[in-house]
């Protein structure tokens, strides 16, 4: 909220700070409890794997919003759109002529022997040439001007229901604030998602496309979000058991019997999509789905194999990728990244472990990482051995001075580190909702914002001019 030059409250926060100054701590805490009750009643929980009852937890919600000015947001959206288009162009190329490899801009084995690369996708023709239709880009801020992209989530990013429900909750609890401060609305997201899905329906359809959202089921951690989005779009929420390939099309089992599905917004991972092609033991997907997809009889969103664009080993090449496909320099910067597969990078990383963040190439959720500055000597030594044993498995990045935002904690209002995941949709056009998922590290000094590691969320406000 405060700039790092010590100039006091930054302008996007001024109206809010004024309001916050008039609030009593006790009242804020009461509101915080009220918010939690609201979330629990609505059932906005996420499941913890492996348990049925105790399995639903709330992600802590902080009632103090994260605020971005209209001009800051405009800059971000231009950068996001550039990325979304470049990443999709990259995927189209990788699964077709592979010009970028031929041009020597990216090492071939990094793509071909990458587990996120799906050879079965080579030559497939997704409608409009789009692979990743729903993208959540993780962004951190380190100063007034500097935003860095931490990760491009191009597979099945989640969290958008928090963007929507956090806003609902805030508007319910603080209507006076919204009367005072003009905050851009996020409520068009489901409609935009629906438009995006419709725009990529199989081309020769002579009727309105039928859309369904494929979920792994109620025990999945993001099940609430799946049901929420299906509900908001007015489409069926289906599981693998509800789908069948029949007469050369994908059908869902309705009370009237089988009904054709044209676009499948899937929220299950690639490997579970079709037991005939990927994991044979999967019961979450549908046998024969992939063949239909390749034949253009159904559209899968996001496309299988879209993970190649958010692989951590590919990440450091993203600036290169943007330059290659758009002919322009990236608007949003990457965090400088050391690829431990390169000998010189590995040497540097091993020498600077206490200053760096080390991540597993295929890890997610904040697991399997080392945060040098806060790690113990033992932890550092353990990672040193891991790095030496399997350097290909790791990348390293400098620890960034993440921005903070006032957050309600036990002792009062205190700064906590945060990141931001805006959501972009790509179909007939790129649509970016003004807002996103702000995750906040609730522990003092912590830089880990993942909900599985004690992080919380905030409402994200984009101010209107």
């Amino acid at each position, binding site marked *: 909220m405060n700039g790092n030059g010590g100039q006091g409250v930054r302008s996007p926060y001024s109206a809010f700070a004024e309001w916050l100054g008039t609030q009593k701590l006790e009242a804020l805490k009461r509101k915080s409890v009220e918010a939690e009750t609201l979330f629990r*009643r609505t059932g906005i929980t996420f499941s913890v794997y492996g348990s049925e009852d105790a399995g639903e937890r709330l992600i802590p919600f902080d009632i103090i919003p994260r605020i971005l000015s209209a001009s800051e947001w405009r800059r971000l959206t231009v950068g996001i759109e550039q990325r979304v288009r470049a990443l999709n162009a990259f995927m189209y190329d990788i699964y077709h002529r592979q010009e970028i490899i031929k041009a020597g801009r990216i090492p071939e084995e990094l793509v071909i022997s990458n587990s996120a690369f799906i050879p079965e996708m080579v030559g497939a023709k997704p409608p409009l040439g789009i692979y990743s239709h729903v993208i959540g880009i993780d962004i951190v801020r380190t100063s007034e001007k500097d935003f860095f992209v931490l990760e491009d989530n191009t597979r099945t990013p989640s969290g958008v229901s928090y963007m929507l429900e956090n806003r609902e909750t805030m508007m319910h609890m603080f209507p006076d604030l919204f009367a005072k401060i003009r905050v851009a609305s996020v409520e068009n997201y489901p409609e935009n998602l629906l438009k995006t899905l419709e725009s990529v329906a199989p081309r020769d359809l002579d009727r309105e496309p039928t859309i369904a959202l494929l979920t792994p089921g109620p025990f999945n951690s993001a099940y609430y979000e799946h049901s929420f989005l299906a509900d908001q779009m007015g489409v069926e929420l*289906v599981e693998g058991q509800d789908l069948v390939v029949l007469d050369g099309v994908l059908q869902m089992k309705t*009370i009237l019997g089988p009904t054709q599905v044209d676009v499948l917004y899937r929220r299950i991972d690639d490997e579970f999509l079709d037991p005939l092609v990927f994991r044979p033991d999967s019961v979450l997907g549908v046998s024969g789905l992939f063949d239909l997809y390749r034949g253009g009889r159904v559209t899968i969103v996001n496309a299988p194999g879209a993970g190649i664009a958010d692989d951590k080993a590919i990440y450091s090449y993203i600036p290169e990728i943007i330059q290659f496909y758009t002919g322009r320099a990236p608007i949003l910067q990457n965090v400088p990244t050391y690829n431990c597969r390169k000998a010189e990078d590995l040497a540097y990383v091993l020498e600077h472990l206490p200053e760096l963040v080390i991540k597993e190439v295929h890890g997610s959720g904040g697991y399997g990482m080392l945060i040098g500055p806060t790690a113990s000597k033992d932890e550092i030594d353990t990672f040193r051995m891991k790095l030496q044993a399997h350097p290909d498995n790791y990348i390293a990045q400098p620890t960034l001075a993440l921005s903070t935002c006032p957050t309600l904690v036990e002792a009062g209002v205190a700064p906590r580190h945060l990141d931001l995941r805006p959501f972009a949709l790509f179909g007939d056009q790129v649509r970016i909702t003004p807002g996103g998922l702000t995750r906040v590290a609730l522990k003092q000094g912590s830089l880990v914002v993942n909900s599985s590691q004690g992080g919380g969320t905030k409402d994200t406000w984009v101010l209107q001019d």
Partner: protein
Amino acid sequence: MLGRTANDLYWLARYVERAENIARLIEVGYRIALLPREGEGYNEEWRYTLASAGCADGYFAKHDNLNTRDVINYLLFDCSNRSSVQSCLKAARRSGRAQRIALTRDMWEALNDAWIEFSNIKPTDVTANELPKILDWIRSRSALYRGAMLNTILRDSTYFFSQIGTFLERADNTARILDVKYYVLLPEVEMVGSGVDNVQWGAILRSVSAHRSYRWVYKQNYRPWRIAEYLIFHKAMPRSLGACYDHIMTSLDGLGQSCGARYTCHETALETAHLLSEGDIDAVFRSGLHEFLQDFITRNNRFGCEVAEAYHFNG
């Protein structure tokens, strides 16, 4: 609508209704267990409660004899009992959560709140003095859910499947209560008019919330035949078999119209509804009340299976 969704909605409604019925049965059983009785231990009343709830076999598989605490615990909290209130609410919520988008927000919140609050009740909290409060609470939760549904849901297949589930379960429950209790009471005709007897008869009515309405309708004391007639045929009585089948027919017609087809389940229900509209209590007693009720319970179950098949509940 997915076949699986229809299946979940149907069972969700059945479980909510069942939880309420179990609470009613406990309430009545408890009232009677408190009364002194001749010849047998007062705990014997629980035998009929368990039989009416369809829980007798399960109970005696776990317990050697009847006592109030064990019975109440078995009916309220035992997870191995698929009809305990705990199991019902859990199953209802699981179905509700799986079909979150078929429910309105009001329905979901009523269901979810009920589950959260019930999970916080410990079996040890259920003292004699607390029991009535908990039973009332269960009934009020069921009423809240039904109210939320009736007030907020679109009159489409979501509504029709919920209604069918509710009234099929309710009809089954009423038929069982009548079947079990009536036979217990009939041999004691010589006691008609005695205080205990009136309480016993009243208990049948009370377990379907009809002890006051009976007097309004018949303007006379409890009479065995009248009570049977009231619970089987009287359509003004909302838990009678006749009233349940009125609701079932309305929803089946709705489904027939919105899906554009009629199936075997329509025929079966029509036949049953006809029996209930045209039948009379004298004929029922001539051919045997027990036989009539058993036949009804079988028909009712068959109808449930036919609905599941017609609307692809299992894909």
